């Protein structure tokens, strides 16, 4: 079965991203396909590569990136939500005249249309949030 996943909250403050991650891992384990994980609202903050969690805590961004790499899963940050919150890839940073970008490898920035498309492509769309 094909799944789309929407994550509406950032890492660490809410459990949403953790729940979505464990759901995604279990779905892949069961042989399902994940067409896309779409990060919206503060969920875009899951895509930072600048987080430095303590050694004894999980690294949420790195964990997503690894899951995506191993299973060829798209991790998409909503461009409008990301720009508002200062989540920029190298292209966006250049375009906006900023001196740095902060997006982790494995994540991509794209439009809200990708969320609708995930709803169209997937057999199930599941939402994690607050």
């Amino acid at each position, binding site marked *: *079965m094909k*799944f789309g996943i929407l994550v*509406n909250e950032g890492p660490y403050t809410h*459990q*949403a991203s953790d*729940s979505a991650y*464990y*759901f995604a*891992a*279990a*779905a892949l*384990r*069961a042989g*399902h396909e994940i067409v896309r994980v779409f990060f919206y609202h503060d969920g875009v903050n899951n895509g930072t590569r600048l987080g430095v969690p303590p050694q004894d805590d999980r690294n949420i961004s790195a964990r997503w990136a690894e899951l995506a790499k191993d299973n060829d899963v798209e991790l998409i940050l909503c461009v409008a939500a990301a720009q508002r919150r200062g989540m920029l890839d190298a292209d966006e940073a250049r375009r906006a005249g900023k001196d740095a970008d902060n997006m982790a490898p494995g994540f991509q920035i794209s439009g809200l249309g990708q969320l609708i498309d995930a709803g169209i492509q997937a*057999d*199930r*769309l*599941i*939402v*994690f*949030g*607050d």
Partner: protein
Amino acid sequence: MPVLHIVNKSPYDRNSLDTCLRLARADAAILLIEDGIYAAQKNAAASDKVQHALGKHPIYALQPDLQARGINPDNMIEGISLVDYDGFVKLTTEYDKLQSWL
């Protein structure tokens, strides 16, 4: 076709469970995750309505979230089924609409 309702908030903090119970049809199932699992505890203020809902809907609770919060399965309302993440995925394949009460 039946809906899987997912509730992730404590019934003592938000009205998500109340709204879910108001709008869940007879063929729907309910899955408690994250802080939603507090609704599974017996001898509590929300127990009666959950008990009543069990007469109409299968109710599941996510075991890893229960365990994380120190809720002993013995203190759970009888009739609620525990699932792990594999069981969570399986439920989402068995019910064809997913409604998360954020």
